[in-house]
Each structure stands twice: as structure tokens, then as C-alpha cells.
């Protein structure tokens, strides 16, 4: 006797987006002519057909309970015929065809603590990672720092008074789940101490050749410790990337005394004006200081405000620094330039200043 396995549905992929589109969007798909910003957080897209769709963008903590998502659904039913979307920066966007409903929707969002903004020359939501809420390799929390920084930058979310866009992102370790390495301001969790091998169990839990091969600087060697197969770390060669920990749980990296935050600036992904660029190191290390990380908040705010004061119209942080030079950036922000700012990994020489073009 054999029993028939229950029929399983697999490999169906996501629902077709067509089912999810507001009728005005469906009707004007590919026919959009231009858009204008009615006020911060409110866009109006106008079709060749003359029809309009209004988008109201609200900030979100990204980590959402189903209670809040159900409330979003209720708002969508009340104001948007049941249609909404989310943005690549984790904001929620309500899609309306009736402009009279914009202000009541904004009022209801604001009453419930959800700010409307994030468009054009604003600081939009901080793209971020899981941190201590859910990640095994985090050198810091993510949501707590984001909350603390956005509480302070909130006036820039609900207005468009900056010289240009400013994209802030946070990653809680060098894996960088998110475009942290190409952000105007990147908040990056870092470890600063080599992994501490658990020699008693490493040989049983990990494949040693894989562990050795995982190190980008060749800092890991096979070793026998107290008669057990394990590895040794050449500590001077370790730059704390934690790739070994990802392939081997017996090489923990977490270390409260040495883990913390670094701040990087001047990256972008858009091709507008200057080419996409990596963020560069501004502040090598700030200790973790939960629950509100005041030193990180102050550092980010300082960079934003110095840039806002000195940049010309349309200049993003990296473009502003390109014009004034890094020396002036460090002077104006009061950030100290240290040996850690000079690269010493592969291709480091390409970042040395091979000219006499200097500012005094």
C-alpha cells in the first residue's frame, strides 16, 4: 500500500503585478507624460490621456507588524480604492485618483505617527539591515540607530530644503545587505577584533579547507590545538570581514568591547551628473551606545548640516566634496583624518594622490 502524497503547489512565482494595479495606473501604463511635486511627499503623475494619479509617500520603520500592514490596507480601502505600493527605500505609497482625499489621508497618517515626505531634495528613509533583531553577524543594531537618526533628521524628511537628494543607509556588518557602499552617508557596523576560534568544536562543525580558503587575506591556517583539528588566525593579517564566520560558526566575531560604527560619505547610485560612486571613509569608529547612539546621530547630523550649508544647488555630498576637495571636507566638518583613512587593501595605490594639485 502506498499513500499518495498531498498535491503540492510549487514554482508558481509571484502573483502577476497586473492584479495589483490601480485602474488609473492600468489604463495609463506606459503613457505617463510628466510629474510634479504638489508638496513634500506628494507626487502627481500626469498621463498623455490627461488622467492623473497622486502618490502620497509615508515613512515606515520597515520592520512592520501585520497590525500596521492591515491598517495600511484599511487606509488604502478608504482613500485609494484599495491600491498601494512600497518603494525601494521601504516607504509606503498610497495611490489616489481623487486629489480631495490627499489631505485627509495625510492627516490620518500624521495622527498615527507616520510622517509624509521623502521626495526630491529630502532625506528619505534609511535603507537598513536586520541588526540585533534578527542577524547572526551584526556588529551593531540596525533599527535602533535608524530610529534615532531619523528622529533627528525628521525635519529633512518632511521638507525639500536640501541642495540635493541625500541617501542615508545602514548596514550592521560588512556583508552590507543594502546599497550602503554607494550612499551619500553610510552607517556601517564593524568588528575590530579577529575571530576567536572555538578549538574544541571547530573541527567537528566546520570544513577546515573551506575555512582556510574563505579568508581574503590568507590569515587562516590549519592547526592542531590540544590534539584537536582546528585553525589559527594570523591576527595581524585579519581585517575583520567575518567571511570565515559565515562559513564556520565556530569562529565568532561578536565582541562588545571592539564592535561599533563607522561612517562613510559621498557615494551614489544614480547616474545624474556624476557617475555612480562608492562611499568613502569619514569616521573610522564610534563605539556602540544603545539605545540611542547619540554620537552617531550627532556625526550624521553634522555632515548633513555642513553639506547643506556649503553645497551648491543639485550638488550631492560626493559632488560637493569633489569640488572642494577632501581636505576641506575634513576641515569644515571638524572630523579628524587618521591613518585609518588611507586604504591598504588591494589597489590601495590607486587612491594615493599622484599630483601636485593641492589646496592651501
Amino acid at each position: 500500500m502506498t499513500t499518495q502524497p498531498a498535491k503540492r503547489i510549487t514554482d508558481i512565482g509571484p502573483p502577476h503585478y497586473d492584479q495589483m494595479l490601480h485602474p488609473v495606473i492600468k489604463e495609463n501604463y506606459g503613457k505617463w507624460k510628466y510629474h510634479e511635486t504638489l508638496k513634500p511627499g506628494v507626487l502627481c503623475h500626469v498621463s498623455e490621456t490627461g488622467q492623473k494619479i497622486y502618490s502620497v509617500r509615508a515613512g515606515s520603520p520597515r520592520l512592520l507588524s501585520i497590525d500596521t500592514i492591515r491598517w495600511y490596507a484599511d487606509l488604502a480601502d478608504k482613500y485609494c480604492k484599495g491600491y498601494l505600493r512600497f518603494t525601494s527605500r521601504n516607504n509606503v505609497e498610497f495611490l489616489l485618483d481623487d486629489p480631495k482625499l490627499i489631505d485627509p489621508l495625510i492627516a490620518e497618517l500624521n495622527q498615527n505617527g507616520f510622517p509624509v515626505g521623502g521626495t526630491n531634495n529630502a532625506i528619505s528613509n534609511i535603507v537598513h539591515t536586520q541588526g540585533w533583531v534578527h542577524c547572526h553577524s551584526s556588529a551593531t543594531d540596525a533599527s535602533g540607530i535608524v530610529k534615532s537618526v531619523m528622529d533627528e533628521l525628521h525635519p529633512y524628511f518632511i521638507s525639500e530644503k536640501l541642495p540635493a537628494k541625500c541617501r542615508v543607509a545602514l548596514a550592521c556588518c560588512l556583508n552590507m545587505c543594502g546599497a550602503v557602499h554607494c550612499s551619500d552617508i553610510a552607517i556601517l557596523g564593524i568588528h575590530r577584533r579577529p575571530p576567536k576560534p572555538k578549538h574544541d568544536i571547530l573541527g567537528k562543525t566546520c570544513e577546515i579547507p573551506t575555512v582556510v580558503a574563505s579568508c581574503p587575506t590568507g590569515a587562516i591556517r590549519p592547526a592542531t590545538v590540544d590534539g584537536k583539528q582546528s585553525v589559527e588566525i594570523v591576527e595581524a593579517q585579519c581585517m575583520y570581514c567575518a567571511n570565515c564566520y559565515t562559513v564556520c560558526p565556530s569562529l565568532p566575531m561578536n565582541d562588545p568591547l571592539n564592535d561599533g560604527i563607522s561612517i562613510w560619505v559621498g557615494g551614489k547610485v544614480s547616474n545624474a551628473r556624476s557617475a555612480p560612486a562608492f562611499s568613502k571613509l569619514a569616521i573610522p569608529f564610534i563605539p556602540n551606545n544603545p539605545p540611542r547612539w547619540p554620537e552617531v546621530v550627532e556625526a550624521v547630523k553634522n555632515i548633513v548640516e555642513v553639506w547643506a550649508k556649503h553645497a551648491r544647488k543639485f550638488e550631492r555630498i560626493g559632488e560637493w566634496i569633489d569640488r572642494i576637495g577632501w581636505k576641506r571636507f575634513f576641515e569644515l566638518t571638524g572630523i579628524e583624518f587618521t591613518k585609518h583613512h588611507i586604504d591598504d587593501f588591494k589597489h590601495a595605490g590607486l587612491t594615493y594622490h599622484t599630483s601636485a594639485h593641492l589646496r592651501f
Partner: protein
Amino acid sequence: MADTKYETPMLDELESGPWPSFIKELKKVAPRKPMVQDLLGQLEQSYEEGQGHWKHGGIVGVMGYGGGVIGRYSDLADKFTNCAHFHTIRVNQPAGWFYTSKALRTICDIWERHGSGLTNMHGSTGDIVLLGTTTSELEPTFAELTANGFDLGGSGSDMRTPSCCVGKARCEWACYDTMALTYDLTQSFQDALHRPAFPYKFKIKSAGCPNDCVASIARADLSIIGTWRDDIRVDQEGVKAYEKAGLNIERDVCGRCPARCMEYSGKLMIDNRACVHCMHCINAMPKALRPGVDTGATILIGSKAPIVQGALLSSVLVPFMKIEPPYQELKDLIEKMWEWRDENGKSRERIGELIQRMGMRNFLPAVGLEPNPDMVFHPRANPYVFYDEYFVAEEEGEAQA
């Protein structure tokens, strides 16, 4: 036992202030979800100590799939028993992150029954992230998701869930239909998405124009960025209206053009052959300027975050490709690059790293592309050039292969 409730003085400080609070989100579901009560307890301990308490993932999943579920276990399981298992389920989002209220409620109801009630809308790759459940709930969750038309996303060494910008659904700048392409690629490569068979992950992101709202050039192994190759469409009256409204067109539009290809003196003159398609002028005057009508995409390859050999941005592979159904040229290219990486890639090596290790001179013939000056900022400056063959004197035979 299910009533464990911890004091969380540090987390409570994150409930005040004008930005929406994730702690409030946790507390909304905590009264009915013991798992989240314990999560709050563990998180408070992390805040006190300055370190995380999640263990390395384990291999958990649903039958027949190798991806879509991330195993997560607490290293304080004895203390916080209700979140001892706290696995993540990645659910493939609808293209462009568009939803009906009904679809969202369906997801919420499933997650009410089977998980913590916590989500990310959305994860960095684009999936709906269902945050926190136990191993025994994985199959029932999956069964309900698929019965309602949803499927899992990618994880591990597979094709990760493709994602895209809003595209033609609500943007006048979309140079191709990003959502249609993303849906098609996702459906065409279901096996590669669910069953990890690659040396390492492979991400595809589709952006409708060079503004790249999905950061494809920084976050995708394959970046598909919309562009056009004819002339920018200009409405001269519209340009004048921007000037009247106070925009300094000479200084802030022409003066910021990276190609210096435009001039303004009552009329905007653009040298379209010199234009590098950066979008600045169009961004600055959206009611007056639009991309051209001969549209398609630039295909770029290889971006990634630092782990292992350093961060990379994607670089140009195909300067211009028409992106139209059935997308055969693009799909053939993708399959050829996968085949080449399967042959040559090492474990945890992204394709960008592999290309740097083996060289474009090996990669390009494998995917059937000719070298093109658009692929580089400049030709090589170093004279250490590899040649595949050399001549020898006649008596020694023919040229070596």
C-alpha cells in the same frame, strides 16, 4: 509559560520621537505572540550587552526547495524559549511592490496563523520578509502562500528574487517595461530561483532609467538600466516656464551637464551625440524634457558588496539592447554567463570577482560578446598583455593554438 514578559527600559526609549518606532511595531503583536515577547527580552539583553544573540543559520526549508527560508536560532534559547527558533521566510514580491489591500490582508492572515506577525516590507533584495517562525510552521505557511498565489523568493547560492523600479506603471522616464521583464525573468528561471545550484548567489535588478532607483549598479550581479539612443524630447515652451519659475538654466542645468552638451539662451540647444544620458536635465525639468523614443537598456555586470574580494560596481557589458518580449537575447546572455560561472567559479565567488580573476578576455568570448570601448573608462595603461598564440619559425610548424 507563554506569558513571559520582560522589562525593556532601553527599548522603551525608542518608542518616543517623530519617526515611526519599530519597538511599537513589536509591542503591537507581543500581547498575542509569546515569540515576540521573548524577542523583546532578547533584544533588550543585546542592547544591555552591546552584541547580538542569533546563531548562525541552519539548513531549514520547505520540501523540494533549497532556498527561500533562512534558519535562525537564538543562542539564549534556554532563557528565551519562545524565540529559540526564529526563521525567516522570503516571499517573492509582486513586481514594483504594488499591492491590493486584499493581497496584503491575505499575507497578514497567513502570518497571523503561522508566524510572529512581524515582517519587513521589504528586504534588501526585494522580497516580502516574514520574520520569525518555527521549523514546524514552514510547510503549512508555504502551503497557504501557494494556495493564495504567492511563492517563495531566493536565498543561498541561487538566482535571488529579481526586483525592479516602478517602471512604466508610474514613471514617465521608464525606457523599457521593468515590471514585465522582472515578472518574465522570475517565471522563466523558477528552478534557478528555488534550487540553489550556483557557486554563489546571482542578483538581477531592473531600473527603467539611469536614475537607477533600485540601485542596480551597486547591488546586482546583472544590472539592466534603461536608456535611449535618439534625441532628448524638448518642449521649448516648458523650458521657458522653468526659467520663469526661477530655475537658473544656464548655471544649474547646462552648467551641471557632465558632457557639457547643452546651451541655453532663450532656447535649449542639445548636442545629442555628445549626451551621456545622465538624466540631470530631465530630472531638473520633468515637464519640459523627456528621454527619446528609441529606448532600451544598458546591460552591466558584476556589482556586489565587499565580501569577499572587495566591493564592485557593475560595468558595461552591452551598451544598448532592445528589451522586448520574449527577451530572448537577454535570456541567452544570462544563461551563457551562468554556464561560464558554473564551469569556472569558486564557492562564494560572485561573477564580478570571477571576471576580475579570469579577465574579460576569457569572459567575453564565453558569452559571445565582442570587446567594445564602452566597456572601459580607458584602454589599459599597463603593458603586461596576454596573447593566446604566437608564431614560430616554419620548420617548427604552424602557429601554436
